[in-house]
Structures are given as C-alpha cells and as structure tokens.
C-alpha cells in the first residue's frame, strides 16, 4: 500500500506542517515542515528517536496542538483549526487516560454519552466493544482495578466505539512488558485488518514498526527522513540516520567504504555477513568481541581498522575472540546511502560507540 495518486482523498494529509514551541531564543522547532499523505485503511507508523516530533505530529492530527504553519486535511476536509471534539478522529493515549472516577463501561460509553445516546443503547454498545477487545464482564470495575494490558484494551474500546475514520495511537504498548506487548501487537494488527480503520501509530521500537506497519515514516529532528514500506526502510534506508536507527547496521564511509565495496557510503546489515574460507572473502580481520543473543551470535571483527559486526545464525561455528576470520557477503547486500551530510553527522552523534571501560 504505497503512496499513490488516487481519486479518494487521503485519510490524513499534512501540507508543510510546522510546529514551534516557545518564542525567540528558546523556541523549539518540534515539527519542521512535514508533508505526508496517509491512505484510507493504512496502518501507518511514525518511528523515530525520543524528541523527534512524533507525538507532536499525532497531537496536531488529534487537534490538541495547533500547527504553527501549514494545513491539515482529514478525509479531504481542512480541519487545521478545528477543536478535537469536532474531528472524526480518536486517540489511544500512551498512559491510556482512562477516567479514574468512572466504571469501565462508563469509560467506554463516554463518547456516546456526550453525543446524547440513550442509556440502554450506550450500555449495549459498550458491552459489544468490551467483548470485541475480550474484556467481557469487567464493565463494573474501575480503571485502577485492571492490569496494564487490560487498561490498554479499554482505551482501545473507548476510542473505537466512536467509529472514527482515523485512530491515533501514541506508543500504546510502551508500558507493557515484552510478552504482553508481542501479544497485543498481533491483536492490534488483526483488529485493524478486521475493522479497516486507518491507524496512525507512534513508536520508537523498530521491531514493532517493522512487523506491524503498512508504511513507516521515520522522524528525525522534526523532519520526515524517509517514508516507505518496512522492507524499503530496512533494506534501502535513504540516509545514514535511518540505516542506523532501524536495525543493526555496518555503516561505512569514504576510504573504508571504497576499499571494501567500491561505493562512497554504504550500509551492510550484520546478518548479511557470513564467515568462510579465505577464498573469495570480501574482507578479513580478527575477532574483537563475541556476544551471544540466543537466536544469533554477534561477532565484532576488526578488519584493517574498520569495525564490522556479523550476526551468525544458530548452529554456525562461533570463533574465539582473537581468531582471524574471513568475511563474505553478496554484492546485493551492500546498499549505497545517499550523500546527506546533515543526516550523517546526526547519525554519528547518535551511535558513536565509546566503550566505557576503555579509558581506565
């Protein structure tokens, strides 16, 4: 589901949207010129490091923050200045924002109540919604009496009962622990497919983004660095920043890159590197560190001054630290990065390794 020029209006469209907090010296450009169109029915993820502007974009779509400049359309209608309660959009907040003084059923039925739906109808629909998120029977409890995962589902039911065109989710799984999170990821994705609602999903977890999304927009310092399907983002990152932020990556520049690959600036995923014999090896070096991760083993190799990491599959022979190894990869595994100095500088700042023990 790639961006395409279609006659149906985009579910959401941002045109040159900026958002600046504060004024003068201390102004923060939280969102710095974003153009984006999300198709109806799409599961679109905003991915990026902390402070990159993801939440701010979501809040502008929801109407909680007004853009400093630019236009915002939902379903083709300009809603730039509409208050939240007049937008066909609902939100699942990161902290769920359940009303602590109301029962679960009343929380779920809130959207109906404020629209003046009668009590009986409210009750019935709320129960249906709770059933949909597999929470039958907790309607009379208070939010404080539910576990984190259950609250998350209530927040979802409360948003969905309004049948929004668009559901916004701000790191909805951030507070859950790993296993519960994996389970909720499947459930959310299944639900989205079933209902056909457009989801705009915020996360800083790359695994989550890759496995759930139709498309991902990678944010960096208030700008959209790249928009694409998970495959495109992972395999063909546009910039060094995207390459390093999504997944583990060997990013090589200048000399090293030219020497090993013939390009100026490249990315090579560690799982694409194999160990093998000297014959046909693309590079060779000594093992500096071996880390066991269960599903794979990461080996750091110092190849003539260039640090490369290779992820070995289970069952592969793992070399000792200090051993000499030969590295192999397919030419197709090497992805040339566009030359974008600003982004490169940033990427370096984010991931520059400085092993803590080395100094003493």
């Amino acid at each position: 589901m790639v961006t395409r020029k279609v006659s149906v209006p985009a579910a959401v469209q941002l045109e040159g949207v900026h958002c600046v907090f504060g004024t003068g010296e201390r102004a923060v450009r939280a969102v710095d010129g974003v153009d984006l169109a999300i198709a109806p029915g799409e599961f679109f993820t905003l991915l990026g490091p902390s402070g990159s502007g993801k939440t701010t974009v979501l809040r502008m779509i929801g109407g909680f923050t007004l853009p400093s400049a630019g236009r915002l359309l939902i379903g083709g209608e300009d809603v730039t200045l509409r208050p939240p309660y007049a937008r066909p959009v609902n939100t699942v907040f990161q902290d769920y924002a359940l009303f602590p003084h109301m029962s679960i059923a009343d929380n779920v039925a809130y959207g109906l109540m404020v629209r003046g739906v009668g009590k009986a109808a409210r009750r019935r629909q709320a129960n249906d919604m709770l059933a949909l998120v597999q929470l039958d029977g907790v309607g009379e409890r208070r939010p404080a009496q539910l576990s984190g995962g259950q609250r998350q589902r209530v927040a979802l039911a409360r948003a969905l009962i309004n049948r929004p065109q668009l559901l916004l989710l701000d790191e909805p799984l951030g507070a859950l622990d790993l296993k519960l999170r994996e389970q909720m990821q499947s459930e959310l994705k299944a639900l989205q497919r079933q209902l056909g609602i457009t989801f705009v999903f915020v996360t800083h977890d790359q695994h989550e983004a890759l496995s759930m999304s139709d498309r991902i927009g990678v944010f960096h310092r208030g700008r959209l660095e790249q928009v694409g399907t998970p495959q495109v983002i992972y395999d063909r990152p546009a910039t060094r920043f995207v390459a390093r932020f999504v997944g583990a990556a060997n990013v090589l520049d200048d000399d090293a890159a030219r020497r090993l690959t013939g390009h100026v600036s490249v990315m090579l995923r560690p799982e694409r590197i194999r160990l093998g014999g000297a014959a046909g090896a693309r590079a060779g070096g000594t093992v500096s560190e071996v880390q066991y991760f269960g599903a794979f083993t990461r080996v750091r190799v110092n190849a003539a001054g260039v640090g490369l990491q290779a992820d070995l599959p289970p069952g592969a022979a793992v070399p000792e630290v200090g051993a000499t190894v030969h590295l192999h990869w397919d030419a197709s595994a090497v992805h040339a990065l566009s030359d974008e100095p600003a982004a490169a500088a940033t990427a370096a700042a984010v991931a520059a390794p400085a092993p803590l023990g080395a100094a003493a």
Partner: protein
Amino acid sequence: MRSDPSKAPLALKLSAWGVIAFLHVPLVLIILYAFSAEDKSYVFPPPELTTQWFAVAWAREDVWAAIRLSFEVAAWSTALALVLGTLAAAALARANFFGRDAISLLLVLPIALPGIITGIALRSAYGTLQIPFSFWTIVVGHATFCVVVIYNNAVARLRRLNPNLIEASMDLGADGFQTLRHVVLPQLGSALLAGALLAFALSFDEVIVTTFTAGQQTTLPIWMLQELIRPRQRPVTNVVAVVIIALTFFPILAAYWLTRPTPESS
C-alpha cells in the same frame, strides 16, 4: 503563531480576574484609609489625605509591644508545630497501620473545628487545671492548629520524595541519622519552610483562639480589635495592616517558589 487550544477562554479569564479583584478591593481601601485625615470614624470618600499616621504609628509603643508579642508567639508556635508536624508526617506518610486515619483526623481537627471551640476548650481546660494565662497558654493554642499546616506540607513532600533516595543513602553506608541529616531534611527543607511561613501567618493573624487563651496579653490582632472598636487614631490600624502586607509580600512569594511542583526528576 495561531491561537492555541491551551489559551483560556475569555469568560474564564474575566471571571478569574474578577475574583482576584473582589479579593483586593478591601485591600485598596485599607491602603487608602491609611492616609485618611479623619481619625475616629470614616466616611467615603475620605475628606483629605495625609501621611502623618505613619509617623504616629511608628511612635506608638503599644503597637510595637503587640507586634513583638505576636511575633514571639508565632515564632514559638511555628517551631513547636514544625517538630510535631514533621514527626507526624514522617510516621504517617507511607506507613499503613491501624488507627492511621484516626490520627490524621485528629491532626486535621483543630483546623476543621471552628477556632472558637479550640479556644473555649483550651480555656476551660486552663480554668479547670487552674493554669494562669501566660505567653505559653497562647503558644499552646496556636501550635495546636499550626501543626496541621506543617504536617500537610511535609506529608505531601514526603510522599513525593523518592523512597529510593533514602535507601540509596543507607546503601552507601549512612545510618538512619546520617540519612535524616544529609538526605531527608534537605529534601524536606523547602516544604517545611513553606509550611512554616503559612503557620507563622496563621498564628500572626489569629484572633479567635487568642481571645480565649491570652488573658490580658495583647497580641497584634487583639490590639487591632481594641483599636477598631474603640478607635483613638483609627488610621493607625490601617497603617499597621499596610506595613504587614508589604512585609509579607516576599515571604509568600518565597513559599510559592519553594513548594511549586517542579518537573525535576532523578
């Protein structure tokens, strides 16, 4: 920047500032009449203005004596309340034991029950035990209702205080007393100071309980009462009130900054 949803609606703004105005109209009047040339009964608007009352007030010994007494009473009451309130807060902040609610109710009671009850109860107790009125009979009354102010401030701060800080301190080798001195008290300090300022203010302006526990001593509010009922130089009371307002301006501001919830973490 366009209008922001976090901006207040005009009606809200107007009513908020309207209430503020309501709170301040009498203060304006107090200031105005500190300069009134009339000395016994007031008429509005004042016929003439003068600054003579400041000099008069300065020269009047009874004012100074009353201020001194009130100051001492407030200082002692605050000090006692600091000790009692902090101890109670330390005990009740996190612990959960039987009777906890009863104790917190007991602490709240002196401020929840009308002052006249505290006053008359203490007075009848003094009477029954034949305790003559003295400086300390006032202080006891004031300290009793000041405790809750300190307690509330301290308990709120203690609940916000990261319990890991105390554990970290002990973990690093500090025993209970060292932890108290180096970690708990510095953390509590600003809340206690703010509580103390409020307690001081309450005591300094208290008239109802004091009426019952002061005997023939004249604290500043009692002096005011006598002055107002039987005025000799009525603007002098206004002068004193104005001076007190001016002097207390900064402590209130300090209390606010000290207790303001900060987003600070760690």
